[in-house]
């Protein structure tokens, strides 16, 4: 690939195999190397094997993507022949399987109900080795890291699974691998920048940009490389060109990180120098930035379902129920068909359509009508107002998509006042927010752009964007954004700044966001963000704390220019607590 840079480390050898078995006339599967970083290839001692026709190759690819796991016969037939397989499909399948056994060794394909399994070790697959090398590179110093990543990238022979570009079964893996390749390349270039190789990189970056003109990350790296090579004017010029290209091609402004880089270039910021601030995803650097945002009174803490998953105890009268639990219970109660019971929005939609919104609300209420024992995150939030008061700063705003009352409980326990602004998805005030003041007043916000009575700076405010359970017997305030239709109604709104009280909206627009236990793969959690930022990205640097996020989840955050912090929630909260407490003025001398 043109994207690879020659380095002086030795070329990786394909897996060498013993010489003994070859005499037997067939390969043993553990001697083979399987390659999917390019067209599908299986390499024996020296040469690639001949893999047969397209169906047989597809079958091998299918088994390979699920290496070590049983793939049901039905699935294999579906994927190979589509919805209307010929009657001979199963026979043909068995035929292909026996061909594969001949090719790869008799023990390669194992028959195991309800299907088949390819017995291959992950280390025999080039993609797995690639990932392993990326993992190893993380802990290395820049120069070695660059070398390791370059070596990993050399495993690539072309587009991943190149002969299955249009096969549905390969799509997810193709996307995942492409994402990994792009970030490995970006990381390798970062490592080169960190080891002072900026001038060598310029040519490579220029040709990469030619191939991927709209990838802002590459442009940013070239801007930095030019700057460090003493070509500041060209670096600034490149920003303007990039901006023009984006405006002309896509009609959008550059993303926030590129804009920030531009600003740093203009003021010749120290952090641009070699050895300037390095941002490590798990380092404490994000903590400093979060605390800084908090101290400037410009932090919004956004809670998602993961906060309850992390809360103490299960749903046995302690702790608010987890979202998965709600999904399963509702599916059971309403007899939701299994293929429809995968997510809460679908189950709730099913219940609302078949039985009505009333029974759905009753059931949700019953599930949520319990002690919402605050977890570590909730208690941490309740500690913040005292600190804000001490420091004389605006209080942080808390936003939640959860229905429970755990935050309120935590504030009550800490004897801290809390104003709540909650969304009504039902009843006469449908589509509006309701303001429940700490003093007890309740007001429907009917002219949001002239509503300035939410004490955004002077008191903690909790914004419940998906409604909430009402634990009073009358259940007047109860409202759940839960079914597909609820989210459609949300999307159909004209813009959140037209619905949220304006002083609160203004704070949200100008804030840094810290997402705790939030997730984006579930589309329903993207709806509010979409309303909040029609341009996709928050205007100020923001973070999401999530441990072991999947590749797709990472993509979602990256697209919103939100930094992913790979930490468990409790760890993050512990660190934040320590860090914030450290800034406190000691009360006693």
């Amino acid at each position, binding site marked *: 690939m043109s994207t690879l840079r020659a380095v002086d480390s030795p070329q990786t050898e394909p897996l060498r195999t013993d010489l003994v078995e070859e005499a037997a006339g067939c390969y043993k599967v553990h001697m083979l190397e399987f390659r999917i970083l390019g067209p599908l290839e299986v390499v024996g001692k020296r040469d690639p094997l001949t893999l047969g026709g397209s169906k047989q190759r597809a079958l091998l690819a299918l088994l390979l993507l699920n290496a070590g796991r049983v793939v049901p016969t039905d699935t294999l037939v579906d994927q190979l022949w589509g919805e209307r397989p010929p009657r001979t499909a199963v026979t043909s399948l068995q035929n292909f399987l026996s061909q594969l056994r001949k090719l790869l060794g008799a023990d390669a394909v194992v028959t195991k109900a309800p299907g088949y399994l390819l017995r291959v070790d992950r280390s025999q697959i080039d993609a797995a080795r690639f990932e392993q090398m990326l993992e190893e590179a993380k802990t290395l110093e820049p120069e070695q890291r660059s070398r390791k990543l370059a070596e990993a990238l050399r495993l690539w022979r072309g587009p991943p699974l190149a002969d299955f570009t249009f096969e549905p079964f390969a799509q997810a893996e193709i996307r995942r691998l492409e994402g990994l390749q792009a970030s490995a390349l970006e990381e390798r270039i970062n490592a080169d920048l960190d080891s002072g190789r900026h001038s060598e990189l310029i040519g490579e970056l220029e040709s990469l940009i030619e191939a991927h003109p709209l990838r802002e990350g590459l442009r940013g790296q070239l801007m930095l490389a030019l700057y460090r090579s003493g070509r500041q004017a060209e670096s600034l010029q490149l920003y303007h060109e990039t*901006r*023009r290209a984006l405006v002309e091609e896509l009609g959008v402004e550059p993303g926030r990180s590129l804009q920030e880089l531009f600003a740093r270039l203009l003021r010749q910021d120290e952090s641009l120098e070699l050895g300037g601030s390095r941002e490590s995803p798990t380092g404490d650097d994000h903590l400093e930035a979060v605390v800084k945002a908090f101290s*400037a009174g410009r932090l919004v803490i956004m809670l998602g379902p993961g906060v309850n998953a992390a809360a103490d105890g299960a749903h046995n009268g302690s702790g608010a129920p987890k979202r998965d639990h709600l999904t399963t219970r509702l599916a059971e109660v309403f007899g939701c068909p299994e293929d429809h019971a995968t997510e809460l929005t679908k189950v709730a939609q099913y219940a609302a359509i078949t039985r009505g919104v009333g029974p759905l609300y009753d059931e949700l209420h019953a599930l949520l009508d319990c002690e919402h024992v605050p977890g570590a995150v909730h208690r941490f939030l309740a500690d913040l107002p005292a600190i804000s008061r001490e420091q004389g700063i605006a209080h942080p705003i808390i936003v939640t998509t959860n229905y429970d009352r755990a935050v309120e409980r935590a504030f009550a326990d800490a004897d801290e006042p809390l104003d709540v602004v909650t969304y009504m998805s039902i009843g006469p005030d449908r589509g509006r927010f309701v303001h429940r003041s700490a003093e007890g007043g309740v007001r429907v916000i009917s002219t949001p*752009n002239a509503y*300035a009575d939410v004490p955004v700076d002077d008191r903690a405010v909790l914004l419940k964007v998906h409604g909430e359970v009402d634990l009073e017997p009358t259940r007047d305030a109860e409202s759940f954004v839960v079914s597909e239709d609820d989210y459609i109604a949300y999307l159909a709104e*004209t*813009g959140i700044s037209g619905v949220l009280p304006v*002083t609160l909206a203004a704070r949200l627009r*100008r804030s840094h966001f810290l997402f705790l236990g939030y997730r984006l793969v579930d589309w329903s959690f993207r709806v509010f963000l979409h309303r909040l930022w029609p341009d996709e990205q928050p205007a100020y640097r923001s973070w999401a704390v999530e441990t072991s996020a999947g590749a797709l989840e990472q993509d979602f955050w990256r697209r919103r220019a939100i930094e992913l912090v790979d930490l468990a929630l409790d760890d993050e909260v512990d660190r934040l607590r320590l860090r914030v407490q450290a800034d406190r003025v000691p009360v006693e001398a």
Partner: protein
Amino acid sequence: MSTPRNGIFLSSPYKGLATFDDSDVDALLFFGRDWETEVVAANVLASRLTVLYGPSGVGKSSLLRAGVVRALRRSGDPSPAVAYFGTWAGDPLAGLEEAARDAVAEALGREPADAPGDLTDRFAAWSAELGAELCLLIDQLEELFLYHPARQGAAGFVDLLPKLVLRPGLRVNVLLGIRDDALAQLDVFKERIPGMFMNSLRLEQLDRDAGRAAILGPLARYAELAGAEPR
């Protein structure tokens, strides 16, 4: 910037019919519009476009210049650049650019870097350099149509506004101030800016309490200043 208590000479606590200006002295004497100031400033921060209208002489310009401009400049660090523009007799685009450049320079503490392209390009570069929003308070818009009839002279501005308001990722927020009897003239934008009036605010006459504050506030402040500054 001179501190208000230092060397200020006030001949009277009242401005009379003159419009309040974006000066420290005027801010000291501007009373009775606290709530409006907060609401209008919040709208400017929350929305890409806000339309502020009201009857002639109700105090739109005073509110913007003595209240909103300052409230916006105090809205956290980094604070946005806030430009007020309301003089339509000359070339509107040149005037707006100058006001914006001054505002950015004030927020940055130095002149912004040169940026190529048209006015939108420069606004984009300036807000990126600043790392915050550029708020444009564009007032007395009725005069655009007065000074530049038959649309020719107004064309530049009529082309500019949709770009400022609609381009994704552009950190420019616009407030249009206009007399209520001229509101229909904004129809020239309606086709290009869907939801043009979605975020509009009407400025009312001062109510009784606010009126009292507007009269007594300056008096009290004047006495206080005079006491602190013996002449």
